[in-house]
């Protein structure tokens, strides 16, 4: 395997344009003749997450997808080429659609939320080996916990991906470290 691996054809094409249309993806000028290349580590992880999602029971797929998206966005941070970042973003979208069975809105929600909170694990272990993350709903990335806030604000967060998502007090969930890392 070379240092950079051409990404599979399915990552390019229609999926990219969909991600861009929904505002979550970085813009790119990639064409069909100009194949983006991603780092081999990202490519391998992508494959691992596909397998993982295939093996996951239906009710837990969304949780695993969120973890996959977080992990892959971290990989994307190491890419220097915007086209590679775009390719990984598109691949995450495909994971959500084809391997998780989510609709486009839900995928966008997960991607926007996870992208903003993704942090590199300090333990050095792969997050693929970890259990699913805590159950999250679209509200967890938004502001709707407090009834004092208007529905306009809730609508805004659903329609516009924001660079700095706020976590409402009620949604700041505490999970013991020992449980999350088991």
């Amino acid at each position, binding site marked *: 395997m070379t240092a950079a691996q051409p990404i599979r054809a399915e990552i390019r094409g229609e999926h990219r344009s969909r991600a861009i249309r929904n505002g979550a993806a970085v813009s790119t000028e990639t064409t069909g003749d100009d194949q983006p290349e991603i780092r081999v580590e990202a490519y391998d992880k992508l494959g691992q997450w596909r397998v993982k999602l295939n093996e996951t029971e239906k009710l837990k797929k969304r949780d695993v997808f969120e973890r996959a998206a977080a992990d892959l966005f971290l990989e994307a941070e190491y890419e220097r080429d915007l086209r590679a970042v775009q390719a990984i973003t598109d691949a995450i979208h495909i994971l959500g659609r084809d391997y998780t069975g989510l609709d486009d809105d839900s995928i966008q929600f997960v991607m926007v939320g996870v992208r*903003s*909170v993704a*942090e590199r694990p300090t333990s050095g272990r792969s997050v693929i080996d970890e259990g699913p993350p805590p159950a999250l709903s679209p509200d967890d990335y*938004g*502001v709707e*916990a*407090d009834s*004092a*806030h*208007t529905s*306009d*604000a809730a609508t*805004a*967060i659903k329609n*516009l991906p*924001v*660079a*700095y*998502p*706020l*976590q*409402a*007090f*009620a949604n*700041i*969930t*505490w*999970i*013991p*470290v*020992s*449980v999350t890392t*088991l």
Partner: protein
Amino acid sequence: MKGLLANSGLAVIWGPPKCGKSFWVFDLGMHIALGRDYRGHRVQQATVVYVALEGKQGFSARKEAFRRHHGIESAPFYLLSTSLDLVAKSSELIASIKAQLGKNLPGVLFLDTLNRSLVGSESKDEDMARFLAAAERVAQELNCAVVIVHHCGIDASRPRGHTSLSGAVESQLKVERGNTGEVIVTLELAKDFAEGTEIVSRLQRVELGMDADGDPITSLVVLPADYLPNERAITRKLSDRQRLALAALDECAATSGTRAPANLELPGLTIVVQVSAWREEL
């Protein structure tokens, strides 16, 4: 917060690492969000945005401890834990907050810490000027107070970095740890309030659960301390001359000390000596 923080402009809360700064600032923010008076200071209720760029891992435990201790399930308090370069991204930050909070814009935005939100040097006047301009822009656009949490440097008597920080803020609060673990907050500088106000708190451990080894997982809540600031223990060491003088006083009290006369109204077993006798002993 009357007497401590203005409801607009910039403020800085600074102190050495591990002095309980972030616990205290979170407690302060929660009181503002809940509209609860704070140690005798009247609070104007407001939405709070807390930008936690340092110690993110402990924040959820801190919140959980507060929730359990105070029985609070909901408050207009919002956490932002995304990495932030304030100078470069202030416009995006403002837009994001406006988009998400709509009409309920924050009354105060905590920036924890300056170091984590500044790409550049705290000591360079250009970098600090850009940072302060960005923070002021956030305060103006959101019509709120921006409270910057900051560390002290090698010189523990002032906030780290360029002095323009102190000049730009409406108020400056110092956080330090007392001898018995209390968190002492002093209003050092204020444009509109009386300086020197002290708030003394203690940190109380709250058990949140058990880890896989059966050990307790804990966090801390900030509570008022029963403490008189003017009785704070003296920590400064005595000089050699002072130690000699004290030893002479002890010796003098042991050899020629007498019970205190009643007219001095001292506690019954107090021993007194004549100043002249002490001088002789010296």
